[in-house]
């Protein structure tokens, strides 16, 4: 299945701004992040030393925070859009 990923600001520079990733059916956010953070730079940007997603990382699926869903265990389906970004700084 194809998952579309949008990354913003520094995350876009490191991960790529707009991606379409091919994932196995039944994959979750955890699986998506494994693919997305294959490089050391990308991994270090999103995860801390203990392998936990850094506090400043926001991940949305279909516009909803994954915390309000099943966190990294949130299951994806074909065509889902996932957004990942650092703290906002507009204005």
């Amino acid at each position, binding site marked *: 299945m194809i998952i579309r990923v949008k990354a*913003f*600001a*520094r995350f876009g520079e490191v991960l790529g701004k707009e991606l379409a990733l091919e994932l196995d059916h039944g994959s979750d956010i955890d699986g998506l992040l494994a693919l997305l953070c294959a490089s050391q730079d990308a991994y270090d940007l999103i995860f801390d030393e203990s392998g936990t997603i850094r506090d400043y990382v926001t991940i949305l699926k279909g*516009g909803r925070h994954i915390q309000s869903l099943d966190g990294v265990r949130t299951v994806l389906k074909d065509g889902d859009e996932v*957004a990942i970004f650092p703290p*906002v*700084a*507009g*204005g």
Partner: protein
Amino acid sequence: MIEVTEDDFNVGKILNDAKHPDNGALVTFLGIVRDDGISGMEIESYTDLAVQELNTIEKEALERFNIRSLDVIHRTGTLSVGDNILLIVCGAPHRKDAFAACEYMIDELKKRVQVWKKELHKDGANGKWVGEET
């Protein structure tokens, strides 16, 4: 009116459109690219979500304060020192509400709306994203 757009805006026209017989006070916040030793800024947004969040904040402001109108335009793209970044226009019968709602909008926008700014350096070097520690 809520907009996230690359286009510049005409403040005079927007203020004029915000005039309403009930509005005795229009309070405006205009954010401009400031010369912090930079040449400009690159502004990026997650536009769909940013517009949605701005609408949510506008709704909150309309519930909290006695205001009649709240307009927000946030620009994106490459801006130079002195360019407009953000316009907020709040109309109310009385000034206290207009000031309070305008400040509420900008405070919440900075915390919640999906927009990011990158400084552009005069020497062409890669600038930092605003708010980043590194």
